[in-house]
């Protein structure tokens, strides 16, 4: 037997297999594509609404609102000052509108990731079986090249905002699920036992003890989710998501060095703003843990 050549299935068999699967999927798309689009339509409405709000409002108000949000999260003047300066520079270099689109996109994606991720993480923390089932799925979501799942998403939804959001959420939701799970599992057993001894129901244990104690860890997950959705913005621009990713893509195709760098830096700037603000918030949540006594 020839051990050099791997005994692969015949070329024609392989092609037929591919054609069969592709055909079946196309069939599925034709049959349910419209239903799915309708189901996901609210995402489009929400995204467009936030985009328009950020773009059509006077820039000075938007700037003030963003600064206020960053203050509410971090309570740090330094971070607020950095935010204002960065946004002013972005506006001055003509990237205001694209930046607003990207912020809207990231906001919607993060919101969806939180809504999906926290309950899933809770489920995983509560049952070892669901933990064992979901963990490999998360591994797959994180290692699968994002272009691969762009294909079916685009086949179903075509180009546009919604497939972009879906692709970004698939890419960015695993950390918040994992860290919610981890945060809940890390709650000390003796504290849980105390809650139980006082007669807490499962729900009371979750709301009064597990989630509050897991919150700093969950916030670390939110932070990572935001960072990953920002990173995905450029890839998502390939399927028609507008924002800072598009000029970058354009720059790659036409070798516009400066355009690429400027938009790249704008992405970095908002990444840093989001990161610092959410991290500072996470720190504030942990205030009670600052050890005074050993």
């Amino acid at each position: 037997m020839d051990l050099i050549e791997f005994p692969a299935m015949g070329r024609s068999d392989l092609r037929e297999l591919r054609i069969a699967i592709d055909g079946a999927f196309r069939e599925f798309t034709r049959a349910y594509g419209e239903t799915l689009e309708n189901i996901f339509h609210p995402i489009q409405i929400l995204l467009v609404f936030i985009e328009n709000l950020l773009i059509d409002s006077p820039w000075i108000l938007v700037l003030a609102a963003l600064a206020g949000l960053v203050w509410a999260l971090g309570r740090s003047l330094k971070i607020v000052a950095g935010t204002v300066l960065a946004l002013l520079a972005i506006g001055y270099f003509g990237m205001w509108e694209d930046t607003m689109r990207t912020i809207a996109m990231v906001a919607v994606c993060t919101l969806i990731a939180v809504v999906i991720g926290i309950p899933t993480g809770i489920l995983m923390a509560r049952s070892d079986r669901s933990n064992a089932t979901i963990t490999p799925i998360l591994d797959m979501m994180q290692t699968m090249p994002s272009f691969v799942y762009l294909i079916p998403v685009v086949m179903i939804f075509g180009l546009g905002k919604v497939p972009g959001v879906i692709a970004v959420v698939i890419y960015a939701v695993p950390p918040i699920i994992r860290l919610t799970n981890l945060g809940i599992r890390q709650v000390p057993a003796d504290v849980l036992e105390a809650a139980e001894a006082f007669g807490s129901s499962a729900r009371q244990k979750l709301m009064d003890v597990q989630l509050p104690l897991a919150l700093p860890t969950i916030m670390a997950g939110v932070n990572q989710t935001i960072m990953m959705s920002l990173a995905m913005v450029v890839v998502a621009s390939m399927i028609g998501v507008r924002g800072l990713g598009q000029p970058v893509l354009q720059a790659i195709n036409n070798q516009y060095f400066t355009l690429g760098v400027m938009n790249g830096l704008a992405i970095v700037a908002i990444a840093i703003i989001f990161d610092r603000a959410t991290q500072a918030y996470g720190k504030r949540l942990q205030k009670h843990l600052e050890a005074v006594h050993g």
Partner: protein
Amino acid sequence: MAEAIHDIEIRNLYKIFGPNAAAYVDSVKNGMTKEELKAKHNHVLGLDDINLTIPAGKIQVVMGLSGSGKSTLIRHINRLIDPTAGELLFEGKDVVKMSESELREFRRQKTGMVFQKFALFPHRTVLENTTYGLSIRGVSRREADERARRWISRVGLDGFEESYPNQLSGGMQQRVGLARALTNDAEILLMDEAFSALDPLIRTDMQSVLLDLQSELKKTIVFITHDLDEALRLGERIAILRDGRIIQQGTGEQIVLRPKDDYIASFVRDVRRGHVITVRTIMRKGAQAESPVTLPATTLLEEAARAMTNAEVSRANIVNRDGQHIGMITLSKCVAEMIAPDDTEEVDPETEVA
């Protein structure tokens, strides 16, 4: 105030740890030992035929070395651990058979618990920790706060209501633990080595706090310890656990005077006997002494000896609670009993050979 009126009755309680526990209960009932169970079936015998009546309104101490099953036993009382067999009766109901919701109600209304490692909620202030039990059973915030503040004050933590647990020393944290359990205002108070993590001085201090509170609260307290001095100081009844079995139970005095076996004897050897034994136990019943000194029956030997020495007499009369004469005691008998019996007397010649 919930003064305790119901005994806790534990009947034929068995606990086997392991995936197939129920299958081995019968073997254990037929005399299989902890070692055999471990070697043959790889299951751990946690509790072995526990029968114990914990009297209402008293402090019941459970004592034993590490791994003897003390924590396992106390966790059965509020069913944090489910038994493999047996019953646990309170107010005529079997806690073991309670449904999920009945059990929750039982824990909320009838029990409070204090933990060895405090187990406070780190994200809640002292006040919020203390109101926890009331808040989960739906008592209004205002009433809960008011009741909690009273207990925080009773355990001596005035002014620390808004502190977080990690801003407090160990002793203070355990006061919070005690306040949290007391605010529940339940008949039963479960304390698993509640003071073991504290420095000796603070520990004695907390014992005083507990005794002081108990003299007015009269709760049914189950107190776990591996410290004999603590057991003798707090326990109105003491049960000694070894390898999941109760090997002796009685008052501290009974256990010190008549240890049932060598294991317990070695436990009580170093005890200050004069501090535990009362004159009632060793008096000559009915006899009358020519002496100006009269002592209540519950006087400790040390105090009795001091009273006689101070009065420069060698005998004293004993009276009961109503002041009736019931017997007499001599100074020499008193001192003889205070000195631990000679070691050579205690060691069984047979075990020495082995």
